[in-house]
């Protein structure tokens, strides 16, 4: 009842929140460093009195003094929350004057945990959800009317708190974040990205509080009003604190504050209050000052937006490119990487596509041999650590979809649902719960209709069904399906017709472009022309390979020709970068020509490879190795390249390093160049020769998050032909033991930088030796010495990366 009254009221009239709590309590006697939330237990009458003063000043919504309470800080958090909510309830009943008693609400305030979530910090997403869930359950029990999630400066933690509210109550949720001078959250999110995610998650009102005064807040207000469709919260500080006559005061008084808030109201603020330094006098002055300003609910926006943890991507204006490379269909290397859980390969693909110009990344890890839901969760989590592009969570397994959507930090794109009833019943609730935009494939109970009209009807069916789950038309993107013209020549025309028709209806479309040429020679030719046609027909998103030059040429030319690229600046930038690539290619061609001309020139190229490795020119070394292998007249044998050029180059660099003639940066760059050349050569080696017995597991031990030393060792070992399984940092002993057992590898390298983590190293060594006495453990790290290594049971110690290679070769 109160819920519906609140939801109705915030859309009909301006409501007011309270002002500062901490600063008021300090004025009431809270000592510096004392936790204000404890006053709910020790001074409930003072807390109640403060809440009452805010209601009497005109506030409708007063949050409880629970900002700093959670189950990890206080064992008695439930009791504390109960008492704190009780204080607000009492105040709402007893306050005289001020806001209309019928329009007073008790908000349960939820503050951040104080810990950073993975991957930047150590708190797991689900742990964060559970911490907030405990608060939410206590708040519901205590009788709160709404939840007020406030002053969070991280998008991911905000999502965890919102999900906790949604999964443990049906009360309305208000979210107000603390933005910095750049107009972003500390971890990078813009107001637009936050609005996209929070509206998707069904939050009733969004906005900003704290950080700065109302003058600065006015500068950011349009970022909300231009994007959001829900009521908007603004709770600025009373300016900045300063010392006057030995007392700390804030520099914006009630009158000045209220004048600023008039502007905030005029520009679209619908839920107004104050934060640090504001007092009941500020709130009273504000309520009076804005009373004649007409209420204005933000206009309903019809924008299709997806977002990552830093920025949003709008769909429907200029075409959006989705990188297709993280999808194992037809990609042998990715399949192998998924089976081997080689996450670095996947991350490398993510970064490469971003660098090539993708706006969004498709993530599909579906293989029958693996646990797809677990891999989806891992892939999404890890990709988010290296790329800030929005992700398209792609699976036909609803469990994998949910894992990906849940762990995703932002507003995701879900791929996909289709028009089969069972699929819609399964997938649409997920899209609704996690606030995703969703791709609808035009596949019905009878399969894919041959005609454009048939596919359009299925598109309408999906849109209608989605509406039943509260998913708006703007968040449905239809895939008309590009069927290869090799089996039905009208496949392209039908897809283009659907795109044109749906464009007229304001429905966005998407295509996996390269399907069109399946089974045909010179596929790039067909793909390129079809892509141009689809863009001209109004295609909103293309799933494609951003590493394909013809496709990117088409995209940039299309944008320039269709006025999506002001003054063709991006086209010019792209064309210039292309020219550089062409130049490099011509250098390569020269090398090839020389190689093919005579053996001497070939060895000139090979010598150049050695020089490239020594000088650490990674890309050059990679290209040269490829050229040497593919010379049509006198190409080098793979083993010859390794033994005659790569290894001697490495030995020369290693000797220079050990003699102090070169230093660690050069050594690493050379090793990396050798790795690049080695990878190329390996592609041509027969499998029996490519497989190596030189295998090693490396890890930084539990509790230690420093991995620079371990990474150096890894790159050097790889350059000397070792297969390295890198378990990362902060690795529990059991994980290392399990990997050794699973892989059968008998050599383990452990690293530790902190004295406090050496016991974990000792524990790991003991566990490995107990498990299999044949396992040899080599150790290194700033706090270790040969003697100490021996004392903790290690089989060998190495002082640096180069020595680690020598030691590993001996132990193997």
């Amino acid at each position, binding site marked *: 009842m109160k819920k519906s009254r609140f939801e109705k009221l915030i859309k009909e009239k301006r409501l007011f929140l309270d002002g500062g709590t901490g600063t008021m309590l*300090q004025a009431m006697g809270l000592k510096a460093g004392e936790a204000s939330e404890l006053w709910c237990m020790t001074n409930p009458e003072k807390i109640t009195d403060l809440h009452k003063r805010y209601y009497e000043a005109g506030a409708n919504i007063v949050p409880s003094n629970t900002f700093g309470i959670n189950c990890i800080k206080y064992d008695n958090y439930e009791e504390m929350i109960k008492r704190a909510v009780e204080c607000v309830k009492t105040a709402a009943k007893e306050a005289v004057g001020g806001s209309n008693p019928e329009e007073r609400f008790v908000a349960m305030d939820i503050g951040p945990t104080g810990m950073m979530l993975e991957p930047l910090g150590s708190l797991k997403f689900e742990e964060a959800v559970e911490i907030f869930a405990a608060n939410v359950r206590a708040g519901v029990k205590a009788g709160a009317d709404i939840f007020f999630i406030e002053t969070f400066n991280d998008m991911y933690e905000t999502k965890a708190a919102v999900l906790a509210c949604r999964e443990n109550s049906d009360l309305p949720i208000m979210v107000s974040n603390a933005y910095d001078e750049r107009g972003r959250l*500390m971890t990078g999110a813009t107001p637009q990205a936050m609005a996209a995610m929070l509206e998707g998650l069904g939050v009733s009102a969004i906005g900003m509080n704290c950080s700065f005064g109302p003058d600065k807040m006015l500068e950011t207000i349009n970022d909300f009003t231009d994007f959001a469709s829900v009521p908007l919260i603004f709770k600025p500080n009373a300016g900045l604190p300063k010392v006057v006559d030995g007392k700390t005061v804030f520099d914006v008084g009630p009158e000045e504050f209220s004048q600023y808030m008039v502007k905030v109201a005029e520009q679209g603020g619908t839920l107004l209050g104050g934060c640090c330094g504001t007092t009941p006098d500020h709130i009273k002055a504000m309520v009076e000052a804005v009373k004649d300003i007409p209420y204005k609910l933000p206009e309903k926006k019809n924008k299709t937006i997806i977002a990552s943890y830093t920025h949003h991507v709008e769909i429907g204006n200029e075409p959006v490119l989705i990188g297709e490379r993280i999808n194992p269909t037809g990609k042998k290397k990715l399949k192998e990487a998924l089976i081997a859980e080689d996450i670095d390969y996947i991350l490398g693909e993510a970064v490469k596509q971003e660098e090539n110009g993708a706006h969004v990344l498709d993530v599909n890890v579906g293989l029958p041999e693996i646990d797809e839901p677990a891999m989806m969760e891992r892939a999404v989590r890890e990709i988010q*650590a290296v790329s800030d592009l929005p992700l398209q969570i792609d699976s036909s397994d609803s469990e994998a979809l949910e894992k990906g959507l849940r762990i995703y930090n932002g507003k995701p794109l879900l791929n996909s649902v289709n028009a089969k009833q069972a699929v819609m019943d399964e997938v649409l609730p997920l899209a609704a719960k996690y606030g995703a935009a969703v791709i609808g494939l035009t596949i019905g109970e009878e399969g894919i209709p041959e005609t454009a009209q048939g596919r359009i009807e299925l598109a309408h069916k999906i849109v209608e069904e989605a509406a039943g789950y509260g998913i708006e038309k703007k968040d449905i993107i239809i895939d008309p399906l590009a069927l290869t013209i090799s089996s039905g020549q009208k496949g392209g025309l039908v897809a283009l017709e659907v795109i044109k028709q749906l464009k007229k209806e304001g429905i966005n479309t998407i295509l996996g472009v390269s399907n069109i040429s399946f089974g045909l020679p010179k596929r790039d030719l067909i793909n390129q022309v079809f892509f141009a046609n689809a863009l001209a027909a109004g295609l909103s998103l293309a799933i494609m390979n951003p590493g394909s030059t013809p496709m990117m040429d088409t995209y940039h030319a299309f944008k320039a020709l269709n006025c999506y690229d002001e003054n063709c600046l991006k086209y010019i930038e792209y064309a210039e970068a292309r020219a550089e690539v062409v130049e490099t290619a011509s250098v390569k061609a020269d090398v090839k020509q020389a190689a093919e001309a005579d053996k001497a020139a070939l060895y000139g190229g090979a010598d150049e490879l050695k020089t490239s490795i020594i000088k650490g020119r990674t890309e050059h070394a990679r290209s040269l190795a490829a050229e040497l292998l593919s010379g049509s007249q006198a190409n080098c044998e793979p083993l010859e390249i390794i033994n005659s050029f790569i290894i001697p180059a490495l030995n020369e660099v290693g000797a220079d390093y050990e003699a102090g003639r*070169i230093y660690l940066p050069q050594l690493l760059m050379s090793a990396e160049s050798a790795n690049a050349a080695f990878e190329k050569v390996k592609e041509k080696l027969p499998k029996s020769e490519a497989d190596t017995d030189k295998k090693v597991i490396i890890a930084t031990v539990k509790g230690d998050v420093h991995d620079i030393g371990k990474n150096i060792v890894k790159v050097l070992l790889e350059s000397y032909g070792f297969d390295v399984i890198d378990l990362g940092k902060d690795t529990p002993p059991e994980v290392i033991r399990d990997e050794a057992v699973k892989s059968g590898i008998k050599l383990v390298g452990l690293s530790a930088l902190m004295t406090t983590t050496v016991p974990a190293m000792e524990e790991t060594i003991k566990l490995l030796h107990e498990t299999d006495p044949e396992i040899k453990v080599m150790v290194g790290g700033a706090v270790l010495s040969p003697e100490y290594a021996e004392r903790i049971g290690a089989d060998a110690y190495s002082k640096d990366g180069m020595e680690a290679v020598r030691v590993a070769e001996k132990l193997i």
Partner: protein
Amino acid sequence: MKIIQSGVIEADGLKINQRQLELRLHLPAGTLSKENEYEYSDVLIRCERTLKKECCIRYAFLKVEADIEGDRSCNLELFSIDSVDLAKNLKGSTGAVLMGVTLGAEADRLLKRLSITSKSEHFITDALASALVDTAADRVEELARNNLNEVKSCSFRQRYSPGYGDCSIENQRAFLKAIEGEKNLGISLNDHCFMSPSKSITSIMGFSE
């Protein structure tokens, strides 16, 4: 109520301390000022440019009273630290500046990304980031000194960080609470009291008027 000064430092305005950088790159003193035989100078410049573009340097500092009792009890008004080494450092101080500075989550993300794409650039950028945050801490120290000297002439002690000597790293919790590290800097601690973002420095600088 204590006033915490906080803000943002433009990375481009900071000249990274070259000796600090040499130490972190394992280079002998003076290497970076010489013409180098290999091509890593270009890489260094490129990595520095990227790091400075990506990171967001935030700082916060706060003046507290300092009262050193006996040989180990350091009362810093908002919290106390039990440490012989810190007590020695603060000896004679009447106050202390609690300061924090960070390169932000953006720097951690860049490092993670480089750890995938190029181990050598990762190593170099990690060294640059460590040296940059150290240089930024010098700038914050200068800001704090100027701020205090506006009122009275002070003499300052060397900066001292929780985790050094016998000063337990556990003190980071109280320290970050005092400077409102999460709100002002976006710094949080893990179970082992390591800071996130990782390229962050907290320190205590004693002073006497």
